[in-house]
């Protein structure tokens, strides 16, 4: 089966360069820092050791909120790694030998799809572990229950793994549509760091706007995960999708991008 061979090839390709673990290290550090700081702030305020401005949050469910920062802020990493899986091939012209080995180009994209899931899950595991380790550690300092024994926590982690895998697929889709590596990275960072947060903040302020905003990929991702710092901090929590709808929306983004790419750039002449 040629798809199996291609997937094995893509797997070797993905893990034979340093890119994946450099991004993984940044992901772990970033998520651990975020989760630690959130645990410090929320845990400190909830336990009364720090004085907050607003109403004191409940300690219940606080751990989940802290842990969800893994996907809340870390989703850009599987997105990036997925994008790079495709744009690197264009950038280093490795698409030539790739398509020589596998002239059926759709199969190549299929192989990337499966490896994208693997890398996404791996990043999910690393991100969740970092968030849980840092968050639980800081929370326990304040005497707040880390809820490590709670099934809710592990459901949350499971959904985050799913979100990470889906984000990697969205990344592959983006990379297939935007071949230029620099352009793709700029687009990914601009959308995830600026456009979406701003639009989602506005969505919380203007009535009716949230009906649109909830279909945005990061909103769908948050819906899938269930808890989100963003949702906790922005006032309007009205329009949020069901978790499984959120997952399907994210998958739909990935599939739409992949199909567009498959019928445009992926079919183009390789030179």
């Amino acid at each position, binding site marked *: 089966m040629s798809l199996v*061979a*291609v997937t*094995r*090839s893509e*797997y*070797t*390709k993905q893990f*034979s*360069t*340093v*890119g994946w673990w450099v991004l993984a290290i940044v992901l772990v550090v970033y998520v651990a820092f975020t989760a630690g700081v959130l645990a410090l702030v929320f845990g400190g305020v909830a336990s009364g050791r720090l004085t907050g401005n607003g109403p004191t949050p409940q300690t219940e469910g606080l751990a989940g909120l802290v842990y969800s920062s893994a996907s809340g802020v870390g989703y850009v990493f599987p997105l990036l790694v997925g994008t790079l899986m495709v744009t*690197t091939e264009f950038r*280093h*012209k*490795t698409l*030539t*030998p*790739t*398509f*020589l*080995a*596998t*002239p*059926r180009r759709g199969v190549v994209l299929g192989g990337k799809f499966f490896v994208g899931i693997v890398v996404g899950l791996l990043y999910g595991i690393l991100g969740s572990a970092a968030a849980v380790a840092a968050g639980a550690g800081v929370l326990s300092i304040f005497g707040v229950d880390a809820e490590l024994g709670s099934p809710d926590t592990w459901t949350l982690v499971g959904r985050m793994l799913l979100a990470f895998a889906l984000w990697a697929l969205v990344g592959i889709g983006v990379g297939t549509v935007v071949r230029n590596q620099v352009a793709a990275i700029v687009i990914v960072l601009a959308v995830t760091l600026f456009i979406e947060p701003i639009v989602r903040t506005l969505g919380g302020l203007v009535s009716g706007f949230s009906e649109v905003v909830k279909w945005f990929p990061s909103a769908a991702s948050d819906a899938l995960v269930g808890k989100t710092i963003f949702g906790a901090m922005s006032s309007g929590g009205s329009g949020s999708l069901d978790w499984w709808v959120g997952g399907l929306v994210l998958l739909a983004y990935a599939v739409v991008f992949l199909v567009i790419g498959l019928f445009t750039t992926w*079919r183009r*002449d*390789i*030179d």
Partner: protein
Amino acid sequence: MPEGQVLELTGLTKRFGAVSAVDSLDARVEPGLVTGFLGPNGAGKTTSLRMLLGLVRPTSGTATIGGKRYADLASPLQTVGAALEASSFHPGRSAANHLKVYARAAKLPISRVDEVLGLVGLSDVAGRRVGGFSLGMRQRLGLATALLGDPGVLVLDEPTNGLDPEGIRWMRSLLRHLAEEGRTVLISSHLLAEVQQTVDALLIISHGRLVFQGGVEDLADPDEYATVVDAPDRAALSALLDERGIPYQLLRNGFTIRHLEPVEVGALAAGAGIALSNLQSKGASLEDIFLELVSGVRVHASAGGTTVPAATPTAGIPDAEAPAPVPTAAVPAESVPAAAVPAEPVPAAAVPAESVPVEPGPGAEPAPSTAMVTVAAPAPALRAEAPPAPTQPEAPRSSYSVASTGVIDVVPPAQTATAPPAHDGTATADAVPADTAPGERAPGNTSTDDGEVQR
């Protein structure tokens, strides 16, 4: 042993907007031969190869490998090995991992990776990142990628780019070896001189159109010869030629007169009382023919599918008693060195000693043609010893000699007839490093590539 396949291009056309990169190209590449795919930069070589390999979609026409399109091949890497550019690598991936990626995709055993790395001489750097590789090492790695599936067809785009002379020679012998095993070997280049020693057959394209298809030996027209003549008093000589209405070109080493035997030119000069310093016949230069073909000055019948029977540019033999054209068979195998060649039909015995190229390095600049002017011919003695060349026993590739027969012979000034056998010729041969096989062509199309002063 994988079988070589016939590569066939039929009406292959690629247009980019209004520009035709490749224009109804019809060509056939046979197994068991090294075929050179030549054309100047931008002639459409790479685009044609990419269409053959399914990377570029033809606007019209087909390109098949053993009758199948590339995309329809059951196991592509085991059928066709291709190296298209020296930069298709992720710089951060090691050479071994690069090959492993494609071995996996083609379901080849991973042991093949070490095999091909050894084959191209990269075993020592297998674990090093490709980013630190020199161009020559990348070329080798590209070749290793092509050889990964032990394919019956090899398609290499400018394979000798960036290789050192030793590497080029290695590449040539490897390609020859692969072709002798019955594989199809297609290599592109924009330099005829670069592939001339390696290839058996040629496809030449220019502006996307085929301008020549056939053996290297078909390239030159047997009628194509010229006489090079020089005199200390050039003014008198040019006046004489002008007076007789003989067209000529003034080159660095003398006047080149087409379609006129040295004997006629010599008689003419003698009649006018002009002392000559040089009178010689030269065959057509393949490089010149190549350039004329690609520039459209010359049109070859093979562009329409026919080929010209094999022939060699014959030397006009200056000797009165020698019948004019040397039969083709006599010329092969001896690669005429840049140094002197006897004035007569080349005796077989004399040839091997002289056939050592002065410079084995490929891509070498043509040796300056002035060399031949200074050498006195050892002719008489040699001629006495050996009868006019019979058919050469070793003549595997007549094409090579054709290329080198820029100078067939040197006519010494009149007194050489009585001069003792000059040892210059042999001395030259001795002095030359003997490491090059006689089968190899002498570099350069002596005397023809010099800067031409058009008059």
